């Protein structure tokens, strides 16, 4: 049982009108580990992620979770299956306090709170864990990017996932904040949560991930340990090219 990968993606393709954003991609996510996905802008990372999380279905291909076909599951079924996600473009519940943002999550998922008190206790716990406790009474729209990124994670955690998807949770953070975020992700993983993350910040990918998948133009071009992947000639070509573009932008 624990030999089956927690997620198996089998030949998924996503076409938007004329554009093929993801082309025949297959890979697995190892239970208990932190797996990363990298690739230049527009490579199809978020699209892949969104298909796995049920945000939209793949045009072709299948997705398995614990060996079960979940290709047609709806986004709102996932927290009941112990899977939770964040969004690259943050979606805080703007007019609610940080606490209420997290309380809302605590009401749902496989371990949903049964009453208001439980929901609050759960939320407080998650806020302590993610370092948002002091800001719990702030309206989420009044916080800066680093805290909103944390809030994305806190909301996902409040549904008690065993598998967590993070889409560029460190983009826009300064080095110190990145270091904090890396520590937090490691702590989440150590508490038993399998993590799949998309990240541009190499430092984070290298220090966190056991395995990395590289996408380029919608295709998987490499998979392996961070070291293996970074030394792959094709990846270096693609990636270094993009790094320069990024620096110019």
């Amino acid at each position, binding site marked *: 049982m624990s030999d089956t990968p927690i997620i198996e993606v089998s030949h998924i393709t996503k076409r938007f009108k004329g554009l093929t954003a993801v082309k025949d991609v297959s890979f697995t996510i190892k239970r208990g580990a932190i797996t990363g996905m990298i690739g230049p802008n527009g490579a199809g990372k978020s699209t892949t992620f969104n298909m796995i999380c049920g945000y939209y279905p793949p045009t072709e291909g299948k997705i398995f979770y614990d060996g079960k076909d979940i290709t047609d599951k709806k986004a709102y079924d996932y927290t009941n299956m112990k899977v939770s996600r964040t969004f690259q473009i943050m979606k805080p*519940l703007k007019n609610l306090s940080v606490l209420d943002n997290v309380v*809302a999550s605590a009401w749902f998922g496989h371990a949903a709170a049964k009453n208001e008190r439980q929901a609050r206790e759960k939320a407080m716990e998650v806020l302590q864990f993610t370092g948002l406790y002091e800001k719990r009474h702030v309206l989420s729209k009044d916080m800066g990017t680093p805290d909103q990124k944390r809030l994305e994670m806190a909301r996902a955690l409040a549904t008690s996932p065993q598998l967590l998807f993070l889409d560029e949770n460190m983009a826009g953070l300064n080095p110190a904040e990145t270091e904090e975020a890396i520590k937090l992700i490691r702590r989440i993983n150590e508490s038993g949560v399998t993590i799949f993350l998309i990240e541009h910040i190499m430092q984070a990918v290298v220090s966190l991930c056991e395995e990395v998948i590289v996408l380029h133009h919608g295709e998987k071009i490499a998979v392996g340990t961070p070291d293996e992947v970074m030394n792959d000639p094709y990846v270096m070509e693609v990636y270094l090219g993009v790094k320069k573009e990024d620096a110019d932008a």
Partner: protein
Amino acid sequence: MDKKKAVRDYHRNLAVTAGIILLIFIAIPIFVKSPYILNVFVLVFYMSTLSMAWNLLGGMTGQNSLGHAAYMGLGAYASCLLVVRTGINPWLSAVAGMVAVAVVAGVIFYPCFILRGPYFTLVSIAFGEAIRQFIINSEFFGRASGVGLPYGKDSWIDFRFGSKVPYYYVGLAMMILIYAFMKKIERSKIGYALKTIREDEDAAAAIGINPIKYKIMAVVISAMVAALVGFFYASYIRYIDPELMIQAKSTEAVLPAIVGGAAFVEGPIIGGLIMIPLSEFLRATYSAILPGINMLMYAVVLLVVIRFRPAGILGWYMNSRAKQFVDERILKKPSVEVIEEVEMAGGR
């Protein structure tokens, strides 16, 4: 612990304040004998209740309905027709009316929630007009001339009185009950689901909320409360016709919530207490000279509120010096942290 005591005192002060307000409302009919003024209060009670029903959708869920007069009207028709045609007890007919309206609203709006965006508002307008046209053309519903309820001896069983005082108390009780109910919803799982949907449907789905399911729940609950108001209205006026469902009436259901503050369960009551007496006063004073002046005034007030206080009166109050004063001097409210600490520690 003095923190504990501070919180206990605060809750006591809140309860005492609420009690005093309630006593004032209970005492009003003892001192006010004018049927005209009592009528204004009855209007305030049922219009605020209708607006609370609207606010569950508009304020809490972010789904703007412009068809609440139709739910109210349908509720009124369902219970009136049952009473007139089958002779069942009016209180039972109220329940039947609420169930009927719940079913109709659920069935009609299910398909339009599959689509996102302003479709709900558009369908709600069309819904109201369609129901009205249907009734105007239906012999069973009494066509344009409407349906009257039998008059007779004062009776609680038949919910029928010559005086306005019993309606005053029933209306007040209805408003308070619905307020308590909405307050309960706000703090429950459903309330959090609705607020999350209002803020962001994708985020809602990502934490496990099925947006369609919860929006249907909100429409059904909201329509049932509107139907209850319809029953109350019919029993009070003792006559209903399709005019009850014209578009302007649906707009009137929205105004108290917007003016009072749609983000707050209390908003419709505060807005109702201000807008309805004002409207009635203007109608009574000027309508002979300038017909429609009350509608004009409604429009002006709405524009002013949206321009200067988009969050409504309560939205303003929540960040005002007035609230600071009330909290510190009258209610003696401890800091949020202290309240939280005591609540989490003691289990209230």
